[in-house]
């Protein structure tokens, strides 16, 4: 049968069997494999997505039941490459280990915060009751959701720095660099480029180095 599904704001026309699970359609036909399968019986929550604002287990929902509704998956959380606040807090608070439960955790937490922006810890734990995790013991996950709802604690993790920033911090002092370049030039007959070259491009025809073959 023909289905029209709105997933992360984008409309998809899909041909699916009437018995197709929403999970399979999302993964196999829409191509969004962020939504995971852990149990196929609505117990582990790895397949949680948000349908019209409600967190649902997509392994026990037929795709046809989502027809005409707004579906939000983990891939729809970040906007223009910018992580959603909840995703950021999962990173900062060390809420991710193997990460297989993470998409479902995020979607259950997102649905909670959409309905209740300032939940208590008990609200959070209950909202995540249907999402099993075998790695973390939930503490970091609960702390991340709390932080995303304004209860900031001390973030557990150091955020990854931008590598470009890290590299730019370190420069060689000009005298040392010039001396090093001279050593290389004396040894190879080639003036090293980059900051060593006094006037940008060197002379490509300078017969300073042996021709190929040696």
């Amino acid at each position, binding site marked *: 049968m023909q289905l029209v599904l709105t997933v992360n704001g984008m409309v998809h026309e899909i041909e699916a069997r009437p018995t197709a699970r929403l999970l399979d359609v999302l993964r196999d036909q829409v191509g969004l494999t962020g939504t995971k399968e852990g149990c196929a019986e609505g117990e582990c929550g790895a397949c949680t997505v948000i349908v019209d604002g409600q967190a649902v287990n997509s392994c026990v929902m037929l795709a046809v039941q989502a027809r005409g509704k707004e579906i939000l998956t983990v891939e729809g959380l970040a906007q223009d490459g910018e992580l959603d606040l909840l995703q950021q807090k999962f990173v900062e608070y060390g809420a991710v280990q193997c990460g297989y439960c993470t998409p479902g955790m995020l979607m259950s937490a997102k649905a909670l915060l959409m309905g209740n922006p300032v939940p208590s810890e008990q609200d959070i734990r209950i909202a995540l009751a249907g999402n099993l995790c075998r790695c973390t013991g939930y503490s970091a996950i609960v702390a991340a959701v709390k932080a995303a709802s304004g209860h900031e604690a001390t973030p557990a993790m150091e955020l990854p720095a931008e590598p470009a920033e890290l*590299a730019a911090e370190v420069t060689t002092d000009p005298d040392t660099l010039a001396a090093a370049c001279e050593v290389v030039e004396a040894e190879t007959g080639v003036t090293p480029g980059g900051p060593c070259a006094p006037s940008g491009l060197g002379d490509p025809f300078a017969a300073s180095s042996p021709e190929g073959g040696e």
Partner: protein
Amino acid sequence: MIEDLQYVGGSYPVHDVAQKVTGELVYGSDFSVPGMLHAKLILSSISHGIVKRIDATRAEALPGVVKVFSHENAPMEPFSRARIHPGQDMSFYDETLFSAHVRFVGDRVAAVVATSKAIAEAAAALVEIEYEELPALLTVDDALADSAPAIHEGGNLLYEHEIERGERPDLEGAVSVTTTTSTPRVHHAALEPHVCIAQGHSTGGMTVWTTSQGVYAARTVIAELLHLEYHRVRVIKVPMGGSFGGKTEYIIEPVCAFLAHATRRPVKLLLDREESMIATMCRPATTTTIRTAFTPDGELLDFEAASTLDSGGFAASTPDYSVHMCKKVTKLYRVPHYQHQGRAVYTNTPVGGAARGWGAPEMAAATEIHMDRVAAALRLDPVDLRLKNMVEPHDTDLVTGLPLGDARVRECLERGVVAFDWAARRARPAGRGRYRRGVGVAAGAHKNGMFGAFPEASRMGLKMNEDGTFELNASLHEVGCGIVTTMRIIVAEVLGVHPDLVAAGEADTATTPFDYGTYGSRVTYVVGACARIVAERVREKLLLAAADLIQEPVERLAAYDAAVHVKDERGRAIAYRDIARLTEMRAVPGIAASTTYYAVSNPGSYSVQFAEVEVDCATGLTVVTDFLAVADVGRAINRGMVEAQYQGAVQMGIGYALYEHLDVDERGRAGVDGFKNYHIVNAPDMPDVQVLLVEHEGDDGPFGAKSVGEIATVPTAPAVVNAVNNALGTELSELPLTPERILSALHGEEVPCSSC
């Protein structure tokens, strides 16, 4: 107390965290290859018997079905799923790709290969199988009965061993206590079920993508079974959703590789939850009887134990697992005489095998429940009894003869007692009402790699790139606890760059050097030590290269902050990227190194844990209300992840103590088939777990670090059980403490019921 370091001891997320929170990471179960077929296993529906007839006619007639494989058309050469090295001892070749003699409900009988998963599943239902049933031996006692038929040639007593160390002292006037503790068969419950993808190539070789904890070992099993030279088989570790030991052994990889080899097509074998539960392997069920003798004031004189392990239908690693149960007590307590008999027994139940802790959680349960019984008999506080007998740093393990290293279990206990306010909590009455509170403590010991039992080594290469960044080439197997990040931190610390400037990839037999994998508590201690050494070699080369470039003796140079600095000359430095690009131009060796590190020690890792519980005497339900885990980690490489891993390990241990069990019914069928009837502790039922790290950096791991992942769960269950026994005044020692067991231990006591 410990040297202050720049990156080690900080807290960093797992390396692929951004891909995990966005859903971008392609796990094994997400992985596909063009033209890929899908396989579905057909599992035995009976617990013991002979396959008399398989009729695949109707299944193979279904459009989209490529072929049905079984013992009739697959190789019947036996293999060992637990072997990690060619020719290795303690490997039991008792298993074939498909069974003609089925040994448990869940044994592999056949597999359907089809163009889609749905077709493979539909076809599997059409395969007709007739069995001749044999008597089912569902318990160890049944299997060891004189009249019992042999589950495997050679009988049902798979392996027997005994160890005795020291001299039994004079026991005149000693107090003797005997207990028997049983631990359940449990499911590892990694959230991602087992999955493997294999592609047969027209060259005769093959590529296997697997969520395994050890790809080199997977290759020895696959290549030898398919009679391929090793270089034709490339096994690649792909991202996985948890393992906990359940993906250490090679169960579905040989099957999937065979299907791909036979069909010359890519084949994906993805198990469902029930298949992962019953058809891979479980933590084995054990029973241990301990008899000890103590002086009246609590000094341990004699420890004698007998353990029986239920191996299930195949040996897997259970003989070695059983042996390792004998190597736990003497890491923890001083005793003049230690004797331990063990046996592993075949039964017609799901296979037992590698699980987080490798015998330590089982033995800790038996030992620490026993210690509480002794404390009661001697009228001593459980803490005091343990303190009287615990090992001291640099003791020798009586059983293995290995030094225990900077063993800080005593300090864990002493600091935990204060942090948990043990004395005050223990003195509080449990109450006589419906809800009763109790506190319990337990200690545990584990190892650091395989040194002493197996040649333990790690190999890796490290190179500097032209822009001054680094790439580590190692056979890492990330299971989710951040080992890639751990290695990056270690290399970064040595080389004086931020960990984000160090890349580290995962294992691929075609491109990364030989290494065993992520198990045996070996990664931080052994692989991490290798990372430190290879980074030191690269640092030497980096300094020599810099010395040449800036014409200074190497003794005057120091590498830190991504530059080589001239000591005592402020501001005179050459950035790593300038050293790298300039050195690339010279006719000198590159700034790279590769090394093999052989482990030189295997100290104890320790944890002492404290639990407070509330038991509802009307329903028998127990809730853990507070928990403290104290950890002797030597030195935390990645502090936040160590704490997080401990929190998860405690959750697993609480499940082991209270909820989880995979029993079989009278016909051998598992009583569970999914998470609806197999209860993993969820968020509302978890206490906030406090983690206290004890750091001394006294051993040979990188910067003094020791293992974390396994020891973290070792003492959890007995701490919880001891707390329940404290709350109820009971002597429960059969895990898990289900409501039925708790209510029956109360002997029908009239419980005041406040809410009814």
